[in-house]
């Protein structure tokens, strides 16, 4: 295998060296992004499958089991079906905005992955303003919702968009305050450094110091992605499907893709900021030294992300839908006060020199 790669490289190398540095860098980055995107999209596909399977099992059903062995090809069947369906643009809709809206929801959900540290000392873009970039991109998602609801020019879509937008911005604040707490502990906007601050044998994951913020962040993440039990924006029993009621075929599929990509992103960010990202929970245990269990790496990030994704599905299978006023009360009257109080506590602890922020 290495022989083949070496001989291929010998052919390519002269051309490679002839390229300007900028082009070389662009090619390297594209070669890094492509597998990551393929993996994310496969994860989205299989997340929809697992959602149906897990909820099925929790409700004592079998779940999808017809397409391929154990139903494993179900996501592909769904994708092909959705691509082959007609995309209907309603008569009264603003055609341009109607088609732009799905793009506005999928692009931020995928592009935020650029700064997520995947394994020690590596992120596709190891930039210093990583957390700021994440905050900016997760906020952009609300434009997709508002524009979709407005451009459709239908009452259900409009109501769904208003609800969804108000809910997203409310929980955005609690999320932002939780991020401030992480910043105080990590002392850097660079996500790689935030993970590095949690890594190591002493296992000082921010989860321990910032437990209330961790809970607030994850639940806000569930509300932010409009997932059950916070899915009044879709509310299939009252406003049909909310902002994407008139979307069909692939335009609907893109919204669906964006929702699931956002779930995976929130799970990844929760792992990175509160649970040590690629750090191993067993590092520092002498008996395990040198094994896969103690070494930090991509596998630990994947395990943590998978766990949080399971929590998303678990919540959906367990809780009935919140009423809208309850959602707003939880966001404004519980989460925001909790985060503000915790920031005060962190400040106080920093003053007396206790905790990870005292260094």
């Amino acid at each position, binding site marked *: 295998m290495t022989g083949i790669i070496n001989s291929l490289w010998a052919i390519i190398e002269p051309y490679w060296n002839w390229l300007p540095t900028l082009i070389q860098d662009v090619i390297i980055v594209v070669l890094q992004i492509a597998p990551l995107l393929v993996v994310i999209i496969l994860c989205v596909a299989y997340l929809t499958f697992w959602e149906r399977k897990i909820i099925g099992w929790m409700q004592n059903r079998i779940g999808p089991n017809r397409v391929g062995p154990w139903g494993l090809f179900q996501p592909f069947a769904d994708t092909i079906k959705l691509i082959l369906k007609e*995309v*209907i643009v309603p008569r*009264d809709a603003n055609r341009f905005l109607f088609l732009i809206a799905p793009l506005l929801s999928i692009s931020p959900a995928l*592009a935020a992955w650029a700064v997520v540290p995947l394994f020690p000392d590596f992120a596709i*873009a190891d930039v210093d303003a990583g957390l700021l970039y994440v905050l900016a991109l997760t906020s952009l998602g609300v434009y997709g919702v508002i524009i979709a609801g407005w451009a459709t020019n239908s009452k259900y879509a409009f109501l769904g968009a*208003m609800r969804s937008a108000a809910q997203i911005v409310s929980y955005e*604040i609690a999320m932002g305050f939780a*991020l401030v707490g992480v910043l105080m502990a990590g002392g850097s906007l660079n996500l790689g450094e935030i993970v590095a601050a949690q890594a190591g044998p002493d296992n000082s994951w921010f989860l321990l110091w910032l437990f209330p913020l961790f809970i607030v962040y994850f639940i806000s993440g569930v509300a932010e992605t409009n997932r059950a039990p916070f899915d009044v924006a879709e509310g299939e029993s009252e406003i049909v499907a909310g902002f994407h009621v008139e979307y069909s*075929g692939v335009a609907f599929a893109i919204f669906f893709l964006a929702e699931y990509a956002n779930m995976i992103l929130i799970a990844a960010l929760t792992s990175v900021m509160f649970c040590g990202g690629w750090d191993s929970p067993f590092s520092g245990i002498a008996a395990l030294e040198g094994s896969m269990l103690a070494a930090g790496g991509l596998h630990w990030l994947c395990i943590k992300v998978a766990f949080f994704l399971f929590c998303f599905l678990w919540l959906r299978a367990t809780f009935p839908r919140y009423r809208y006023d309850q959602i707003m009360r939880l966001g404004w009257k519980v989460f925001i006060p909790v985060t503000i109080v915790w920031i005060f506590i962190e*400040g106080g602890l920093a003053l007396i020199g206790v905790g990870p922020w005292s260094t």
Partner: protein
Amino acid sequence: MLYGYLPVLIFLGIAIALGVVLLALGLILGGGRKDDEKLSPYECGFEPFEDSRIKFDVRYYLVAILFIIFDLEIAFLFPWAVSLDAIGAFGIIAMAVFLTVLVVGFVYEWKKGALEWD
């Protein structure tokens, strides 16, 4: 210095391109025949009986305004939190005063009922 952000730009470009390709694929392969009934806005099988640009609850607007204030607050807190160990006790107390002012405003709007939804 900004060169490190090149991958971010490329990633954004690829993410947008992926969406465009998917959408184009659907529009090309989807096909289908349009007719007047299919293109009318969905309203549970009835003819839509008024314009969909309807009045909406002012509270949505209020939430948006409150959001701007708090989001600005978070934007102020970000640089402060990053440089926490550089600014020492003075910085922490100064921010505590600033946050207290914000909390007073928050309590006021709470008591005024701006956060009620029923």
